[in-house]
């Protein structure tokens, strides 16, 4: 159920996510260790193009990577195929992109 195109996209997004996941984990540890409040965190992220780019890229990569992974799992474990499989993949990807983008926008520019 994976063509070379989907395989390639999933590997490239994995490469993209590897440093972003590490950055994200480091950020969580830093923020909780130092006892930063929500307001203090928002104070640093609001208006920051850098955080918008960091988490925007993260959300974009996750949406593609997870949608292709879900496609393989749903096909192999539930036997879903054809047009329904395409719909599941696109719905997963677009759903994650919508939820993630909304969250990123909320902490940076909303």
């Amino acid at each position, binding site marked *: *159920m*994976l*063509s*070379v*195109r*989907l*395989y*390639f996209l999933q*590997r490239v997004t994995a490469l993209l996510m590897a440093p972003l996941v590490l950055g994200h984990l480091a950020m969580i540890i830093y923020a909780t260790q130092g006892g930063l409040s929500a307001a203090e965190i928002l104070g640093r992220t609001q208006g920051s193009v850098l955080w918008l780019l960091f988490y925007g890229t993260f959300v974009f990569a996750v949406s593609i990577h997870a949608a292709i992974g879900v496609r*393989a799992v749903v*096909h*192999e*474990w539930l036997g879903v195929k054809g047009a329904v499989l395409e719909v599941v993949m696109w719905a997963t990807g677009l759903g994650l992109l919508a939820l993630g983008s909304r969250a990123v926008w909320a902490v940076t520019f909303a």
Partner: protein
Amino acid sequence: MTSNFLKVTIERGAGAKNAQRVFEVPAHENQTVLDVVSWIQQCADPTLSYRFACRVGMCGSCAMMVNGVPRWTCRTHISKVLDDNAVTIGPLRNLPTIKDLVVDMDPFFDKWVAAEGMHHGGRTREHPIAPVDEKSAARIEANAGIECINCSVCYAACDTVAGNPEYLGPAALLRAWTLLNDARDEGREAILDAVSDKSGCHNCHSMGSCTAYCPNELDPMSAIAGLKRETTKSFLGRVR
């Protein structure tokens, strides 16, 4: 042997789990799984169907599930698989059962063709014989995979085939890989296209059952990884 008899359970019929028959088979010091099945057919139940030909691990026709694991039965000593002096033998997994221990191998061989697992010659008898450099890296890769006996043990062992019946499977992809590395084969593009399809090499999760169970100790998993590399390079070349 702790007893003079072995308890042998044979899974018979398409609904194998519902059609188990138990046989008591005389134990011998030197006995393969195929010997046990042959004794049942010759001495206990002549209606039992199974396949074999060479009995020396060359023809690839006697593979069966032995205690849930695919094996070449002619080269598997019964003492290696006995569990409390008992063994369960069934038809190969991932292929339709025709009767008893005989499976329909058509899907397996159809996929060899779908993976372009045939020679793509470009020369005629007027041309000189294509030189083969035994020491080249490509030839070493090809040599590592050409001793496949088409027994379908890897195909039966593959969990990706179990979940995705259209997947070409380890044996067909291993053959595609050996041909891709064969200096005499001129079907590079056809092979790369065939294994890049939705049922192709990119479905492999590298779980490694093919390599773990191959009776000839071949390594289809690494061959599939090689195909993934080559198809990705070719894909990037086309995008550019």
